[in-house]
């Protein structure tokens, strides 16, 4: 499980970074979304990867750490709001500057 998890994180992050470095706002927003997925998964994994164990101490010899799950929830909510905001801002930017280039102007040819 660890190998798949790590590979998923790596691919998500790499794709996210690649998209983030594009010059148009839409790929940048997508890149941010992918990175936030990767970060959320990473945060989740910080409670150690286990399957089928309860989150209550004392019920069994092994238990899952509930705190990272709470942190991930918070991070997801915040990340969702931020993505919504950056989409609106990108649309506004297209409206104001008549281009979807991140610098608000087309590069000189």
């Amino acid at each position, binding site marked *: 499980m660890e190998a798949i998890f790590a590979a998923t994180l790596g691919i998500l992050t790499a794709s996210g970074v690649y998209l983030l470095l594009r010059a148009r706002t839409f790929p940048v927003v997508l890149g*941010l979304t992918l990175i936030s997925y990767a970060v959320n998964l990473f*945060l989740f994994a*910080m409670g150690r990867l286990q399957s089928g164990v309860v989150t209550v101490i004392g019920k069994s010899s092994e238990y899952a750490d509930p705190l990272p799950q709470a*942190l991930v929830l918070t991070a997801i909510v915040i990340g969702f709001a931020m993505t919504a905001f950056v989409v609106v801002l990108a649309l506004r*930017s297209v409206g*104001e500057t008549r281009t979807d280039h991140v610098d*608000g102007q087309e590069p000189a040819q």
Partner: protein
Amino acid sequence: MNHGLILPILLPMFAGSLLLLGAGLSLRVKRSLSLLATLLLLPLSGYLLWLADQGVLQVYAAGNWAAPFGIILLLDRLSALLLVVTAVLGSFALLYAMRGDDERGQSFHALFQFQLMGINGAFLTGDLFNLFVFFEILLIASYALLVHGGGAERVRAGLHYVVLNLVGSAFFLLAVGVLYGITGTLNMADMASRVAAAGPDDAALLGAAGLLLLVVFGLKAAFLPLYFWLPKAYASATAPVAALFAIMTKVGLYSIIRVYTLIFGDDAGSLANMANDWLWPIALLTLALGVIGALAAVSLQGLLAYLVVVSVGTLLAGIAIGTEQALAGALYYLVHSTWVAGGLFLLADLIARQRGDKQGLLVQGPALQNPHLLGGLFFFGAIAVAGLPPLSGFIGKLLLLRSLEPGVQALMLWPVVLGGGLLTLVALSRAGSMLFWRVGLSQLDSAELDYGRLLACAGLLLLSLLLMVGAAPLLSYVEATASQLHDLALYRQIIESGAAR
């Protein structure tokens, strides 16, 4: 448990929520409500300052969950000082905005309150993840405030600011995740003792997470490789917003002080004071490049934005030296630079309003209607910000320079700070002579000076005088702050007393 601790967060939160719900209320009611909430922060933070000055750490356990398990708010001398700085700056910025700037977009007052809530929360929290949450609150309010007033220039700067900060937030979560994964706690005081007790196997990962945090805070504080967003964003923001943003870089600096004196401080074993080696060259280079930017700026607002970068470099140098005297000097300079930079942003707007379509551009424009008054204020602000005697900038820099014994570090710091001061003066005199002396004969008739705005601007700038006159009590306070920050046993007691209950 003193409930006064959480009030600087709750008060703006409720005021902001009311303002959001009552979006249809008349502007007058909204202004009164917003002003009332902001002015109430003044006595409140004053009380907390008095409380913190008793020398005991005040802890507020949310939901009465004891320290390592629940989220705590922590009031020490440092956070109380920054609360006062924020409350004063926010009051003046709001007074200025109420003279018309708040009508240029929607929900200005609600956003302003949420911004204050985020800033106050970031200063008060004793929990690393909670710090992230308050960062996000102040950031999302600042995203909207930055584009307040609209226009292509603001949206362009806003997009860069938002995307950069979202990446910063991702880094923050990564760093917090690693720190939690190894230490198993998010409470900063608890984390400090866990880091101190960590084995050599974990040291590398802990160090990597710690330096990742430095990147995040550096993005907020705007130091060398990460400050490029700042000049554009600050120069294009509406004046009261730019003035309020003077505290935003200080939130980053506050976090640097907090994390690298407490978690990675003197006791952290092989990781002790690991940030200082990085911060020292970064500080000097930030200072130097900020000055070069100020010399090359094409508008008054751009010039002031680069002066913010210069002040960040100066403060960072004080933090990087790491001694108590240097930290005390840096804290004094922090108070001074926040208020004076805020006042200068307001002044730049007053000047730009009398120059028609030339705005703040440093080109020949129409003659000002009140050249003596505005020129006098500019002269005063320039002296303060460049660090000439007798105003507060001089005292701050003097404290910083005197904190070093003669040696290699002094040999590096003195020329950069003093040369930077000189070049700042050159940039400001060039700007001043262009704005006030090399003017056309015509005068704009439609640009009456608004006395409410003038009062807010002059009030904020004249605080420099107050800092000069009241230097002795402030100095003893910041010295006590610096020694409290290095007294790590005090912070560890929070956890011990919490675990004992």
